[in-house]
């Protein structure tokens, strides 16, 4: 009797809450899928093969000329950038950091000119005013204040968000999610690159040895 009287109210409430739950479930499932699948996906051999082949292909495109752009350090930087780009491409843009990496290159190209102009302006102002330290001090003070005011946990969360590309202003749960995917991808990248380096070094050494044998003849 009581149940029949009270059934409509809970039913209505349950409908609304169930729809809300469904929406939340969808979002959660998507997030969970990303989390659950990310580590598994990056661990698979197929991914590593795809990545290493793409990397090799991209490495051929890297300008390794040391004449125009400087010492070997810049070459390694270019290789590293290429490696990160290829990693982001392999991620197929499902994660925030991969999208950030892919868009950063375009941004950099467009903003190079702007940055150079800005730097020149800064230099001019410094020369004019003669206070190169003032800016630094202010920045340092602000940073110190920030670090002291924030609790340790928040500080570390900020550091982590800076480490993961594209997550500087994201809230903590998003940062953590991106970090799981990023760590899995980085592990795969290290494995692939070390295998590739070993392979190339072995082939290089063997070919050098053979060349040494052949050249005198």
């Amino acid at each position: 009797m009581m149940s029949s009287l009270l059934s409509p109210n809970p039913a209505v409430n349950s409908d609304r809450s169930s729809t809300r739950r469904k929406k939340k479930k969808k979002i959660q499932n998507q997030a969970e899928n990303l989390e659950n699948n990310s580590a598994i996906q990056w661990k698979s051999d197929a991914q590593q093969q795809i990545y290493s082949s793409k990397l090799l292909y991209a490495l051929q495109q890297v300008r390794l000329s040391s004449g125009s752009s400087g010492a070997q350090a810049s070459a390694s930087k270019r290789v590293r950038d290429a490696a990160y780009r290829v990693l982001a491409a392999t991620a197929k843009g499902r994660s925030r950091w991969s999208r950030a990496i892919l868009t950063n290159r375009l941004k950099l190209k467009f903003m190079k000119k702007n940055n150079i102009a800005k730097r020149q302006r800064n230099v001019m102002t410094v020369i004019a005013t003669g206070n190169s330290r003032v800016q630094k001090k202010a920045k340092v003070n602000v940073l110190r204040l920030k670090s002291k005011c924030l609790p340790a946990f928040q500080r570390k969360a900020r550091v982590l968000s800076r480490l993961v590309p594209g997550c500087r202003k994201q809230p903590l749960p998003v940062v953590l999610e991106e970090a799981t995917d990023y760590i899995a991808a980085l592990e795969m990248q290290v494995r692939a690159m070390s295998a590739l380096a070993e392979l190339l070094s072995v082939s290089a050494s063997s070919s050098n040895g053979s060349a040494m044998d052949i050249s005198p003849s």
Partner: protein
Amino acid sequence: MNSGLLEMLHYSQNNEMGITYFNENEQFGLGGAFMALNSDQGPSGLLLNGAMKPEPCLENGWSDDFRRILSYENVSSTIPRTLSCPPDVEAPMAEAVVGKGKEVVSSFSSSATGRESSKKRKADKTQHLKVVAEEKTEEKKMKVCEEEESKITEQNSNTKSTTTTATNSKNTKGGSANTKENSKVSEAPKADYIHVRARRGQATDSHSLAERVRREKISERMKFLQDLVPGCNKITGKAGMLDEIINYVQSLQRQVEFLSMKLAAINPRLDFDDDNYLVKEDFLACTSNIPPAPSEMVNHTHLQFNTLVQGVQGSSLNMVENPMEGMLRRTISAPISIPHTFLDSSNLNQIQHLTWEDELQNIYSTEYQQGRSTSFISQPFSGLFEANQVKMEM
């Protein structure tokens, strides 16, 4: 009755404060209850719990209470087994008893109907608590505890706000509604239950609820990270784990930099013509399949020019490379024999377009300076390969 209370005292000495508090109140509550209890109240209490399994032992008034005490003891004994729930399981009982105490007092002051309703509510709670004890699953306990607490908070707020009769009537409705909700919870416990209930001692307003949901999300993700990062299992605090995670990410990034340096050192020594040769073969096979054929053609010529440029600029190193080519073909082609995969992928096409525009300009500039571009464009693939060799030998 005294022996039962003595038993409770013994248990209270062994267990935590929550239960001691609960025991004291239980004495008070039960003492009050015993005075007003009749044997008829037991089954009437059972009637409301249509969804819950009625206890067969709840027959007599006195035996009821003994068994209730024993059931609480059972619950307390199960507490150490489940780590997650002890405070919550104890807490609702304490709160339940406090609520009961208050309600019993209020019921005494009110009419007989009020008394009956309070007993019914008590019976409800005992039923629910026994169900809690019997289920012995973490999630269900948490949910039911939360249900209990939400009920209790509802009821407490009700009792505080209005008069006793009004509150009693509300509480009866609340009690039956809560049984409905409990039945729903028990029916669908496995559905991801995002709707969070208030807990003991915590506010029920939306802000804190949302905060708790957020905190749970964060802790869930920290667990995932804990599995990924090696050595994180020993550290329990969130800050410590974050430290480990940060260190691990930094070490991985440093490893990538070191490996990229290594690859950059290895790269100029190698002539990638063999890979281009493979690429050319696959490209010829795949041109029919790939829609953006003209772009592929353009990209393909880039490849050739790139290697030529590299060959020209690193000419001193390339003198040695001719005999290497055979070795390279054998070594590189074997494991990395899927260049066609990235030819097929659209992503790589985009990247190619991104990276090759400036490459193209550089290549064309150098090539025009050297005056060799026309000859290279016209030659067929195998001819190009020969041209490379010829150029190297020069």
